[in-house]
């Protein structure tokens, strides 16, 4: 176990001295890795273990996902407990109530309509998990776990399951699939409509996953690319141009972090509403 990581160290350092291209540096920071990189000070190597051939090692994204989940749990239990003493929130609870009421009134109620309370826990969890993930990634020396396709694909699979189960519970299993096809479609179009609607069922969560993953990855790559401009041009003077541009993109990333959490939740609740109340 020890020698596999130490050889990896040697290979990494060799690679970095031999062919240091800026795209390697950018990709190495944006993608997942087996160590926390506080260079040039130190690196913290994370445990690497396999389970029957499946690589279950603790990587950067796994660690930050745990951190995000822990933060979410602490914040939300504190907010929920504050409502026991009084219905009027103050301070900390008031701040989070803003977001919670926003998700309930602007996202869940208009799109799902009647019976939206059943889906509110899932929508709130999705919104705050992605929000915390995106904002954790903006701290220097940290990793964005929402820029990992496995994480976003899992969230999209959860949305898919919630949509199907919610739709089938309200309309019956066969009635849900029958309701996918709009009214007044001529009979000879039915085969192609069935294929199109079934593919649409799969394509929408897929788009959710790719949208979140690509937005987070692309934003961070742009910031790293602007910083790497200093090293590519090999002069310190470029920092006067590169750092303000990178700061501007960083500000845009803060907006994109909020926006992507909102879009994921809004589209999830839109699809849930379309599945639950299937009146075309």
């Amino acid at each position, binding site marked *: 176990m020890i020698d596999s990581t130490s050889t990896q160290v040697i290979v990494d350092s060799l690679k970095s001295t031999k062919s240091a291209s800026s795209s390697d540096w950018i990709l190495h920071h944006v993608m997942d890795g087996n160590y926390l990189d506080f260079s040039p000070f130190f690196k913290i190597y994370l445990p690497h273990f396999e389970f029957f051939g499946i690589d279950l090692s603790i990587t950067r994204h796994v660690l930050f996902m745990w951190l995000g989940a822990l933060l979410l749990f602490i914040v939300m239990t504190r907010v929920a407990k504050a409502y026991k003493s009084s219905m009027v929130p103050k301070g900390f609870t008031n701040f989070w109530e803003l977001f919670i009421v926003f998700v309930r009134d602007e996202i869940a109620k208009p799109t799902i309509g009647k019976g939206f309370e059943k889906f509110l826990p899932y929508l709130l969890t999705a919104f705050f998990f992605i929000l915390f993930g995106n904002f954790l990634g903006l701290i220097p020396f940290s990793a964005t776990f929402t820029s990992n396709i496995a994480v976003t694909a899992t969230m999209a699979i959860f949305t898919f399951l919630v949509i199907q189960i919610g739709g089938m519970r309200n309309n019956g299993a066969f009635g849900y699939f029958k309701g996918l096809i709009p009214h007044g479609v001529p009979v000879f179009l039915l085969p192609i409509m069935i294929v199109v609607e079934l593919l649409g069922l799969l394509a929408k969560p897929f788009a959710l996953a790719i949208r979140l993953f690509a*937005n987070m*990855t692309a934003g961070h790559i742009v910031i790293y690319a602007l910083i790497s401009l200093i090293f590519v041009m090999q002069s310190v003077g470029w920092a006067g141009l590169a750092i303000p541009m990178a700061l501007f993109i960083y500000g845009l990333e803060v907006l994109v972090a909020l926006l992507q959490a*909102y879009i994921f939740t809004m589209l999830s609740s839109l699809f849930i509403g379309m599945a639950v109340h299937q009146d075309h």
Partner: protein
Amino acid sequence: MDFAYLAAGLGAGLTIFGGALGIGKLAAAAMDASGRQPEAAGAIRTSMIIAAALIEGISLFALVICFILAGK
């Protein structure tokens, strides 16, 4: 001859062109509508943001393909 990087660069440029055009038209329509009826500006702004995120999502599909090409 290895054209993967060239393809990735050209692809990203074309994608950004299409996406920026789409979002530009969207923003123009939103400005027109807000100017015509300032009371509806809030609802227009919400719809504009949703539509912009969807357009950006599509352009990011193409960007992911460019990433895969550049990684070859």
